């Protein structure tokens, strides 16, 4: 399982980085989204991969790591997902504004001159 998820994270990262290096703003925003999936998964995976061990306590008893997955990376990733949405939104608005101002969707605000 670890292998599958690592490869998955690798593919997401690779695709994200590839898009990050492209010249069009839409490519970059898709790349950032893919990269944030990869990073979120990576942070999440630092708690270990556990099945059937939700960090939800039964009957109000104190929990332990034998019964429950690590809640800390989950809490970190939860807010990261929401903030990720916010930054995507900000970037989208910026790229639209830049596109309106410069008339191009190139990341440098002008088409490459040759």
């Amino acid at each position: 399982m670890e292998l599958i998820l690592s490869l998955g994270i690798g593919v997401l990262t690779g695709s994200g980085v590839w898009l990050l290096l492209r010249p069009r703003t839409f490519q970059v925003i898709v790349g950032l989204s893919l990269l944030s999936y990869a990073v979120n998964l990576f942070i999440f995976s630092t708690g270990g991969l556990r099945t059937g061990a939700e960090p939800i306590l039964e009957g109000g008893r104190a929990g332990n790591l034998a019964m429950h997955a690590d809640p800390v990376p989950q809490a970190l990733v939860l807010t990261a997902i929401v903030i990720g949405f916010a930054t995507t939104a900000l970037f989208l608005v910026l790229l639209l504004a830049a596109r309106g101002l410069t008339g191009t969707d190139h990341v440098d605000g002008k088409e490459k001159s040759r």
Partner: protein
Amino acid sequence: MPDALLLLIAVAFPFAGALVAGLLPTHARNAAAWLAGGVALVGLAMVWSAYPTVSAGGVVRYSAEWMPMLGLDFSLRMDGFAWLFAGLVFGVGTLVVVYARYYMAAEDPVPRFFAFLLAFMGSMTGVVLSGNLIQLAFFWELTSLFSFLLIGYWHHTAAARDGARMALTVTATGGLCLFAGVLILGHIVGSYELDAVLAAGDRIRAHPLYLPALVLILLGALTKSAQFPFHFWLPHAMAAPTPVSAYLHSATLVKAGVFLMARLWPVLAGTEAWFWIVGSAGLATLLLGAYVAIFQHDLKGLLAYSTISHLGLITLLLGLNSELAMVAAIFHVINHATFKASLFMAAGIIDHETGTRDIRRLSGLNRFMPFTARLALIAAGAMAGVPLLNGFLSKEMFFAEALSAKEPLPVFFDVLPVAAMVASAFSVAYSLRFIHGAFFGPDPVDLPKKPHEPPAWMRFPVEILVLACIVIGILPAATVGPYLDMAARAALGSATPEYSLAVWHGFNRPLLMSMIAFAAGIGLYRLLQGHLAKGIEGPPLIRAFEGRRMFERTMVFLSWRLARTAEGLVGTRRLQPQLRLVVCVAVLAAGWTVWLRGLWPGNLAPSGIDPVLALIWALGAAFALGAAWQAKFHRLAALILLGGAGLVVCVTFVWFSAPDLALTQLLVEVVTTILLLLGLRWLPKRLDVPGARGSEAVTLGRRLRDLGIAIAAGAGMAGLSFGVMTRFPPELLAQHFLELAYSEGGGTNVVNVILVDFRGFDTMGEITVLGAVALTAYALLRRFRPAPDSVDVPEQQRDQSAFDASQPDRKEGDTAAEWLFIPSLIARLLFPLILMVALFLLLRGHDLPGGGFAAGLTVAIAMILQYMFGGTQWVEARLRVLPMRWMGIGILLAAGTGLGAWIFGRPFLTSYFAYAELPVLGKIPVASALLFDIGVFALVVGATILILIALARQSLRGHRAAAPRPAEMPAVPEPVQSGPLPTAVGDD
């Protein structure tokens, strides 16, 4: 008063005075002058009351902890040598304050002047009294800074600004070198305390780092004392008000360099390196300064170059590696301070009473201001070294030293006495020029003001100083003798030589040299009168070597050309190379760490592979790669594929025991997709102009390189993830949270308890960021101007409108309304249900998957569904959403919950909880954390809706912007209907 306290007052009092003076009203010139004079007198009193201790060979010390972890103390130390300089600082300071009171014009902001002057006085005292080298370097830089402010006091003139900047650049650069040198010195000695350094002379001179330390410290001292080749800043500093010149360039600022060289003389001097660097700099400055001074037409310019020359004399004396020369140097410091300060003041009086300082215009002032003329005559005599004046005594000592100096090379032996005589002759010539040019000759014509004597108090400081010149000159041993002796003993210790302070040493070689110099100087002045009368600017022979021009060229080279070249070589304004660099550095840094630490298997065996998840991830990888491929060619397809990859991530969260994450990811996925869909409309069509792209080979090469980087990054991340996942740390914070979540946080959903309780402050920060981002997006969109080619109504909408218009029984927008009829009905029916789900998620969040984030996003989705299917205007006619209010309430609620804990005397965000039995709903938790979560919820609702709706509404705005054009089609915003635009969302 204890002596230690006295030192502290002497250093701190001027700074306190500066602060008070700075707060005085702009025209309070009398109050500021009294204050400054009082502070200077108090300082003088402090110095004087330390005399009994110091004169007995004692050292007054004050020490307080400064940075104890670095072993640094704030320490003040006054021995006889420091006493002498502190006395000069405060003594000349007092006189300068009196002078400045009458010199400064009423329209100048005088309190500011005195504030700077006092602060400078404090910094200078700090330099001379520092018992610690780092502290000395600190005060040293402060003197540079305040001299900058003083020189640039008349900042409305370009000369003052340029002069101030040049002085700061040169002296502060020197200060930086000094700091580096001091650090090396401290490294050699093992302590920065002056006492320890002074005791370690042999060790320092034998150390391999001696030469770098020496060069760096001398760079500091020589720049400060305006020694060749750094002398050029001083004449330009003459743009300062004359009291500043009188103070800074006679007794204080420029003497700081000499002070430092003399202070460290016992440890740094005595080597050939010292002799060559200090001696040759001093000799060159002595001759150059005196030569150039003759040809200055500005009285202050003449005095400036004469100052440079006299500082060169002192430096040369210090460089001779002889104790007797050192005594002469200290003596000349005193003498130069007295006659040069009085001459600057006299020049200021002339400027003040006649309106000009140009020797070519001045003449015959002796008849208009006879008293000032006599004072200036005596001071100039001291400068030229006329017998029975103080300048004569130190000059004779200099000649004696020049004759007897023990140099490493005999060549120098013959040069030195000749050079000394030449410089002395020059100084006779420029002193003559100062006096003869200004005070004698025919009556002046066409002066800006009618000259007359200055106010008596303006002349008073000059009288005091000139009196000192005469008294020292006639009775040296009785007046200055004890102080000079004390200073020399403090600086030299047991090595203090025998010397005699007397006017008459018999008819000896120095006296003969003096007489030759006098005759030569007078002859030279007579010879040059014809040339000087022509009024040509600049000295002959070396006119081309102007320091200022070289300085400016260097500055332009450093700050402009070099920077531009460097930017051209390594900088780029293009995003792609920057990102490429960032990614490459990240990959290499991570790879390097792995390389250093090595790779070894983790302590967890990988679990077996589940074929279902493997299949899901095969799909996920395909989605990701597809999105990467299609983002260029087909944006909608890329967006759908991106959503697919998001869903795979979501499934992974479910699979590996993270229901909260799965829920949030799913909701965010929906919101993000809608957001990007809204944005797609404003992006341009892909242009594929033939020939616009470069050669295939270049493009292919670039892509292969990027592909390589992407593969390296991906492989690196995969390896890193695998490494992390197969390791399990021995101790986890999680254990703590799992144990306490229920007993202290009152919730069974540990993730939620962490978010709203344990780490509530983090969450609070995060929702603030979310709110800030939403506001930023909203603000940017308010001023949004779409690109011209995106303004037109989209093609589909045009076709629909054309169809509607062609049918007589249809009206504009019917087609879209028909198409969306069923979805909009469903959306309306679902609206209350979705809101109920959101409420459910919110309430149960503390115990089961859900919570404020998820609930907030759910409400936002319910809203945006209505916008999508019903159209903006339909929704806003029926439902007024005020996202800003939601956000405001949310953040206030969250912060208020946190602050509420203070009422109960608990730290911020401490939560309280209990379980309440409610009818129908059953037992629900009533924790204060729930209130906090409601705050989170409200903010997420507000922020998400604000962004989405602001973006959605751009369709309306875009058309409005296009409306004035001769549009062939009526503008149809949004699917349903057109009409007047309601107020923008959020303008509540």
